[in-house]
């Protein structure tokens, strides 16, 4: 085990533990950035998709993983970001300006939503955001002049510094665009967690009462959390729109919201790694299923008919298994494995055991 001896206060909030860890992450980044050279076009597209999901997951992670506000409606903000981006581009704003603006606009939309939502706790907030996501579907249909309604919108490539970046025409460039956004968002997220703001998010999540006692303005913190979360989600939505090329009111249905929440739970709530790991699961599950179906079909004799709902069924089962056996998600499992190796003879089974707690009502406060 590598032990870092801390000799200064700043080391406590250092973004990485030591140089060794930093080098590891840089190697990972290089390998991923070189993906266009070692992956074929299909899997490059899949990887791009995974990265976009990861950005969306990071957005939701700020709100749900770090501030403890469950949102079942982030597809609404994905849609908002996507349509804002496209509308701005169509209005003649260059992409490099339209893209950040789309995120900022989504953030503002998030704050508008957060103001009434601030009074709601736990389950009520989940239902509120879920209703929002359902409403968004109809709002998109109703605001047809901007959104194209049921017929939807089509977006071609965008121009960055004179280069045409297009999902189909230049998948390499599009991948690098997505990767750049993902890296920037991740760096911002790491720094947010070091900053007082990020710490106050975690304080609000763990106990609102003690956070208040320490002088944190809960309403303000939740509002900022909503704004940041929605802004990041908006960027993910804008990229999703570019990735899909064509989209309409059904692209960002309430199922996407639910999928997004489940994704960060599978990955591991409250960790940046979790958003990426969850995105990998979500991104590759369909491929994995179709491959294993073919394999099973070859094994048991040519029965490869599509079973409707199979994907969501399997997905649900994986999720149930995770919540029962590994509430900390894939990242939690990875931590446990790593700790086991690091502490080899001294690892104890109950090291990560949760404290038992009993339920007290939230209903009558």
């Amino acid at each position, binding site marked *: 085990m590598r032990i870092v001896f801390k000799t200064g206060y700043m080391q406590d909030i250092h973004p990485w533990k030591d140089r060794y860890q930093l080098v590891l992450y840089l190697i990972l980044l290089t390998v991923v950035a070189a993906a266009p050279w070692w992956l074929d076009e299909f899997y490059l597209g899949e990887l791009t998709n995974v990265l976009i999901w990861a950005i969306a997951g990071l957005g939701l992670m700020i709100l749900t993983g770090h501030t403890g506000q469950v949102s079942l409606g982030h597809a609404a903000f994905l849609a908002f970001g996507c349509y804002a981006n496209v509308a701005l581009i169509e209005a003649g704003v260059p992409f490099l300006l339209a893209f950040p603006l789309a995120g900022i606009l989504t953030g503002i939309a998030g704050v508008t939503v957060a103001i009434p939502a601030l009074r709601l706790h736990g389950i009520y907030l989940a239902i509120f955001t879920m209703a929002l996501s359902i409403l968004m579907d109809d709002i998109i249909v109703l605001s047809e002049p901007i959104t194209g309604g049921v017929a939807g919108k089509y977006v071609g490539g965008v121009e960055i510094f004179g280069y045409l970046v297009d999902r189909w025409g230049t998948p390499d460039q599009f991948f690098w665009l997505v990767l750049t956004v993902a890296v920037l968002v991740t760096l911002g997220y790491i720094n947010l967690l070091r900053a007082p703001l990020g710490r106050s998010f975690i304080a609000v999540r763990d106990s609102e009462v003690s956070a208040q006692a320490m002088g944190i303005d809960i309403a303000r913190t939740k509002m900022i959390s909503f704004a940041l979360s929605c802004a990041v989600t908006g960027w993910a939505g804008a990229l999703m729109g570019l990735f899909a090329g064509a989209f309409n009111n059904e692209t960002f249905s309430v199922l996407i919201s639910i999928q997004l929440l489940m994704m960060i739970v599978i990955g591991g709530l409250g960790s940046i790694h979790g958003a990426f790991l969850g995105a990998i699961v979500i991104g590759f599950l369909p491929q994995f299923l179709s491959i294993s179906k073919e394999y099973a079909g070859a094994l048991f004799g040519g029965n490869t008919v599509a079973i409707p709902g199979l994907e969501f069924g399997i997905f649900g089962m994986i999720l*149930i298994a995770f919540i029962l056996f590994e509430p900390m998600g894939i990242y939690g499992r990875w931590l446990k494995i790593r700790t086991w190796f690091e502490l080899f003879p001294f690892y104890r089974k109950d090291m990560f055991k949760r404290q038992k707690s009993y339920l007290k009502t939230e209903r009558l406060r």
Partner: protein
Amino acid sequence: MDNAQLLISGLANGCVYGLIALGFVLIYKATEAVNFAQGDFMMLGAFVTIGLTNTEYMGLPFWLALPLSLGIMGALGYLLDRLIIRRLFGESQTAVVILTIALGFVIRFAAGLIWGHEPQTLQNPLAGREVRFGGLVLGMEDVAVIVVTILLTWGLYVFFNRTKLGLGMQGASQNQLAAYYMGVPVKRVQGFIWALAGVVAGIAGILFAAKGAVDPTTGLLGIKAFAAAVIGGFGSLPGALTGGLIVGVIEPFASRYIAAGYSQIAPYALLLAVLIFRPNGLFSQVRVKKV
């Protein structure tokens, strides 16, 4: 006359929403968890009854299949608590929420595998008969829905407010540890309430299947029932029924009097309004804690 007809059919629809909402409220009242799979439970109840009754499946007589399928639903609810929910004892509400959403996916998938994805109706003795009051026409199924819903709500209300077990459940929901010290068998109470919620979902499913066709996605109706439960105030049984009726009545009137695109957002718009202005619902339970 036209409006009265709309009102009546809206009320009958609303009762189904109210019944699903009743399931939410039951579980919420007793365990402070929200079962997002309640709508899918209802769908499952409908399909179990169809599987027992319809001639192309087992073809049992309706009045024999009825208690049988309710028993199955109750057992399923109990098993669900016993095998899965109980392990989450003491964990955050979010875990239960996500778990039940996932469970909904699994139930939908399983129902699709067993009974297929075609819409089906329950072959029941009430089908085709109707009652007339003056100029109003009301199907026998609708009458059954309304009567059963009112009886069930009343029965559960009495159960929660008058009987020892019901009061114990309320205690268990407010503070598990304290209730346990006072001699409430918290775990057994929780198992019982999930079984009860299964039975209520079964009743809702049977009534729904008698009124119209069901397919595996029918469970998504549960989202509307959510609106009903929230409008009425999660945690109040008469509130759930009222919320269901409000949602049920709003729908036909909205589609009749409001422009086409706007009508379907009415229940959700109402839900948002209620959450914003009265976050605890119309029949909120904000009073002094008893435990």
